[in-house]
């Protein structure tokens, strides 16, 4: 077709100005839903990183009572080493534990000097392949026949078995709840923005009904008649997406440094590549919402 894309852009622009209240409503709801999606994805990425760093630190420590019998330890250690879920098992003697403690408290060596003897227990440090197995491995360790003989408090084994389960569980639970809430919110916002868009398009169709009638009369193709309306929906989607992307970029600029200042112990970073990818995803989302909204209106209000 010899027609220039300028024709469609002009038509879409004119109609946009004519129905600016509806258009604005559509853009704002698209903006909010995409912003939510964006924030959610960013939070997801950050939590993923935090989890990864926490996961590296997830290890099960089994503290051994003073004077345990080495023949009790060996079978447990062997069975752990042979376990496929376990990455490594390291034995830390009382002396090594004290060395570590000294390193950690190098600023105030008097603490260690004041100790009459070495109060730190020897331990086994069990590192997992996949931190999600932590509960299962803990259960297995507790069930091992030698376990009670090795620890100082057989009546309360939790005292001698340390692992980061609490944090991980909470994080997993939190992300699951957040995920559900965000998905429901986004679905609602997307629904509302589609209603806005299809209303805008309906008004645009109504405003141009004479032109449309004549286009039909002189044989304009169906796609030609639909195109300005599709474009209008896509434009609204893209503008909403652009606003959301703008806010995401600002968030990356200000929020991420602030977070990593406030939470120095957690690795809070968001790469430029991930941000660009997110931008593309949001733009695609916006276009899809705009297209679906206007296709919906065209099917209902513009029989061709």
């Amino acid at each position, binding site marked *: 077709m*010899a027609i220039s894309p300028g024709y469609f852009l002009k038509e879409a622009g004119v109609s946009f100005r004519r129905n600016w209240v509806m258009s604005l409503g559509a853009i704002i709801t698209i903006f909010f839903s995409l912003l939510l999606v964006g924030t959610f994805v960013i939070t997801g990425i950050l939590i993923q990183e935090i989890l990864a760093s926490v996961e590296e630190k997830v290890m099960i420590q089994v503290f051994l009572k003073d004077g345990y019998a080495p023949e009790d330890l060996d079978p447990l250690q062997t069975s752990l080493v042979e376990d496929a879920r376990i990455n490594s098992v390291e034995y830390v003697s009382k002396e090594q534990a004290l060395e570590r403690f000294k390193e950690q408290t190098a600023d105030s060596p008097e603490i260690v000097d004041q100790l009459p003897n070495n109060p730190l227990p020897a331990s086994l440090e069990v590192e997992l392949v996949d931190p999600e197995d932590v509960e299962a491995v803990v259960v297995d360790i507790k069930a091992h026949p030698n376990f009670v003989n090795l620890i100082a408090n057989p009546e309360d084994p939790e005292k001698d078995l340390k692992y980061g389960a609490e944090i991980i569980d909470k994080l997993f639970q939190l992300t699951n709840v957040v995920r559900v809430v965000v998905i429901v919110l986004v679905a609602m916002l997307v629904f509302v923005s589609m209603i806005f868009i299809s209303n805008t398009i309906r008004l645009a169709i109504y405003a141009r009904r004479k032109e449309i009638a004549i286009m039909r009369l002189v044989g304009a193709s169906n796609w030609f008649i639909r195109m300005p309306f599709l474009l209008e929906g896509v434009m609204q989607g893209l503008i909403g997406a652009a606003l959301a992307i703008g806010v995401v970029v600002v968030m990356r600029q200000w929020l991420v440094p602030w977070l990593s200042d406030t939470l120095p112990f957690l690795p809070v970073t968001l790469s430029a590549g991930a941000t660009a990818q997110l931008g593309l995803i949001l733009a695609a989302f916006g276009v899809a919402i705009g297209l679906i909204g206007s296709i919906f209106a065209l099917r209902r209000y513009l029989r061709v």
Partner: protein
Amino acid sequence: MIVMEHVTKSYAKDKPPALKDVNVDIEAGEFVFCVGHSGSGKSTLIKLLTREILPTDGTIVVAGQDLSQMKNWKVPYLRRNIGCVFQDFKLLPNKTTYENVAFALEVIGRSRHVIRTQVPEVLRLVGLEDKGPSYPDELSGGEQQRVSIARAFVNRPPLLLADEPTGNLDPNTSLGIMSLLSRINKTGTTVLMATHDREMVDSMRRRVIALENGKVIRDQDRGVYGYGD
């Protein structure tokens, strides 16, 4: 150019059909009047030819194409071969004469070059070469109808359908429109015109197809409007 065989059109089950068993054969290049009282089915016949509506029964062939077999997406291409003129002109009020005519070419994707040569040419043909920049509300009824004829003819369709094109015009102006349609017919374009303007039909002495209550009651070469009424 137009073949209708046993065409029946019912708008509603509980009402008598608007057209009943209509058989019409119009050759390329003919000029044909379709006459009848208001409600006799003239507009229905024209809408069937542009496939704005489908017949309840029977076959319609326009320019070699069977309309009831035609896929929906092909209908626009059929309409590019049919010019349409109506009693109410159907001009866009916010566009000038030139723009109204150019619009018909723009929306079927004709190039700017084609538009710039064909629009002035057709405006000259209908005698409105000076009225290009005027808006419809600055034109008389006759001039507006000429614009709508220019728009219908700018793409040089082989078939021109006119549904009571002189219905809103005084007799003198109507005569001007008639002679314009005759001129267009002389270029080889088939013209089918629905009307109930008795004097005009009688003066032109062309083929007349008369409808009454949806039936063809007379089909006569060099005919007149009718006797009894």
